[in-house]
């Protein structure tokens, strides 16, 4: 199927009433989740995963993807109006967005970030189609060694990019892999680490872990700071229109941010967050008046807000083309595919074209809905923030509990949820990145399977890896990514110490 045929077909799928409704529901929930601090896109997607059981897989994926990119729109709203980022990916937006709001340009900031998100979202879909089709075609020739090397490289990049020290990142990778190894082992069916529990032999589920680490843990952190949020300023519809100068200044950052965001999205790791920081730095360098940054420069809103939407599209590429999630949100999407009995991988595009093209086309529709919804309804979304915190948090707690229970009707899952909630709170306190745990949990079984298949194929002959240049290159790249920065740091420290010793 060519890209044009595919898109036409995709629109015919996405425009069916049920899919349209799912898209609308997804982006509205996503916007709300983005507005509300306390529950992010990953937690919300995990929470709603069970409710998609009854849906057709395409519809389910359209809705969950809508939450994912919809949250990027919502996150900017609170950043600009109340200086409280709803999502990590909107932290940067608050720097200049809130300053703009204080100068009475809140409407312009909101409009520019919505338009920027829309441009980035639509450009991102084009990128997604282009990259995913090429990658999936190339991946048809991949065997277990390539997948193994790709996963190893992904985890290596992830531990480098996720902030914090390498030791802490490795610890999180190990924790996720260990959790993923619980249960019936896939090749010989041996039960591992189950302590004789039948329920545990089915493995530790993604939903309770994700909701614990991202839902309950977040609530525990909020429990520390009692008291409501600052009052949001109100924005009248008339004020939404940016001036011509503002448009002109925002155009470059929007285009640059979209492309930059998409490319960063392809890299494993917290792509959306990272892309906003990168875009902000790029825009400040490129700006004619860099001194305005931090005081309400519209470039500092337009660039990052476009980048985080571009990144969500980019992050979907490895998931839809290879079946490998490299971001926590796409890990939940993978969970949704697996629950519906769909084999993710390079064949997804040819075997289940309605999923790939339907989701891609729905992203166009979703972005258009978001643009239309967001501008006039900003007041409504912000008024959600006026709900008292005790009500919001208690409801989220209850939803997390019942939602988790409803997946398997399992008490064990509830315990996993609570334990992961406590653990996630502690990890955050100690400066660990819990997102890595989710990814390692999902990638673990894949990593083990391909590892053992590779060993089996090699039959003790390491020449196999040498005869596969891509595998070798990926593994070496992973090694370089982990080792070289450490080596540089150590040598710098050594030189500094020597300079002190030799110095006057």
């Amino acid at each position, binding site marked *: 199927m060519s890209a044009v045929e595919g898109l036409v077909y995709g629109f015919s799928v996405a425009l069916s009433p049920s899919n349209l409704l799912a898209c609308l529901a997804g982006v509205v929930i996503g916007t709300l989740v983005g507005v509300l601090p306390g529950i992010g896109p990953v937690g919300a997607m995990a929470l709603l995963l*069970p*409710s998609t059981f*009854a849906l057709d897989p395409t519809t389910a994926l359209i809705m969950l993807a809508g939450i994912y990119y919809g949250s990027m729109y919502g996150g900017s709203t609170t950043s600009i109006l109340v200086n409280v980022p709803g999502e990590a990916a909107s932290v940067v937006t608050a720097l200049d967005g809130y300053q703009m709001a204080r100068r009475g340009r809140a409407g312009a900031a909101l409009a520019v970030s919505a338009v920027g998100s829309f441009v980035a979202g639509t450009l991102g879909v084009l990128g997604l189609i282009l990259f995913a089709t090429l990658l999936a075609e190339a991946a048809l020739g991949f065997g277990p060694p390539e997948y193994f090397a790709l996963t190893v490289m992904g985890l290596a990049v992830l531990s480098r990019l996720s902030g914090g*020290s390498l*030791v*802490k990142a*490795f*610890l999180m*990778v*190990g924790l996720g*892999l*260990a959790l993923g*190894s619980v249960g019936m*082992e896939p*090749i*010989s069916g*041996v039960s*591992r*680490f189950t302590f004789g529990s039948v329920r545990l032999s089915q493995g530790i589920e993604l939903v309770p872990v994700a909701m614990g680490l991202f839902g*309950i843990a977040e*609530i*525990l952190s909020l*429990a*520390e700071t*009692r*008291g409501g949020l600052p009052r949001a300023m109100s924005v009248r519809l008339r004020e939404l229109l940016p001036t011509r100068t503002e448009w002109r200044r925002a155009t470059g950052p929007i285009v640059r941010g979209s492309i930059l965001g998409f490319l960063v999205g392809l890299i494993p790791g917290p792509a959306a967050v990272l892309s906003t920081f990168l875009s902000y730095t790029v825009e400040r360098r490129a700006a004619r008046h860099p001194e305005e940054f931090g005081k309400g420069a519209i470039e500092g809103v337009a660039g990052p807000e476009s980048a985080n939407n571009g990144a969500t599209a980019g992050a979907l590429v490895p998931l839809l083309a290879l079946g490998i999630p490299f971001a926590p949100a796409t890990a939940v999407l993978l969970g949704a595919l697996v629950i519906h009995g769909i084999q993710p991988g390079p064949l997804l595009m040819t075997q289940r074209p309605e999923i790939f093209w339907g989701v891609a086309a729905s992203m166009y529709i979703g972005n258009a809905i978001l643009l239309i919804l967001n501008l006039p309804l900003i007041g409504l979304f912000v008024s959600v923030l006026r709900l008292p*915190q*005790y*009500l919001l*948090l*208690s*409801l989220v*707690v*209850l*939803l997390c*509990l*019942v*939602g988790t*229970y*409803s997946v398997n*009707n399992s*008490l064990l899952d*509830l*315990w996993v949820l*609570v334990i992961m*909630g*406590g653990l996630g*709170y*502690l990890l955050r*306190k*100690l*400066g660990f990145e819990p997102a890595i745990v989710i990814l390692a949990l999902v990638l673990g079984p894949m*990593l083990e399977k391909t*590892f*053992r298949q590779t*060993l*089996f194929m*090699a*039959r*003790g002959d390491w020449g196999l890896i040498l005869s596969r240049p891509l595998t070798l290159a990926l593994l070496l790249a992973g090694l370089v990514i982990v080792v070289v920065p450490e080596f540089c740091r150590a040598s710098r420290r050594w030189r500094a110490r020597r300079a002190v010793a030799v110095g006057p």
Partner: protein
Amino acid sequence: MSRLPLVAALAFLASSAAYLVAALRLSPGSVEQPGPGLFPVAVGLLLVASSSAFVFQSLRASSAAAAGPPAEAGKRVTGVLAVLAAFCLFLPWLGYAVTAPGLLVVILRLFGLARWPVVAALAVVATAASYYLFGVLLGVPLPAGVWTR
């Protein structure tokens, strides 16, 4: 100075070691014919190595960075965790209709809602609404508890 990082590091090391020991008892197989134990042993080694390094780091960092929450906030956090655990513990016996309002009452109070009539009303309404949504509309068999036996 907070001892939290060091305590956490030692707990990590202990659980990593326990995981590795359990993994070593599984059959590792051979390089040509890898068994179920090979991968967990590799993961266990990664865990033990990185948690040892973490212990070492926290020992060296004398001015511990992570300060605990203020006492009152810390109490609220442990309170929420305790009531969540209690919910899991009592759900199979007392059923959803009793444990859910109980949970909500405690959490609403912890989060600062003082007026008892409002607390009780919210707890009842939220329980009924969630029961209708999940138990009736989505058909989830929420535990009824010992009352029906």
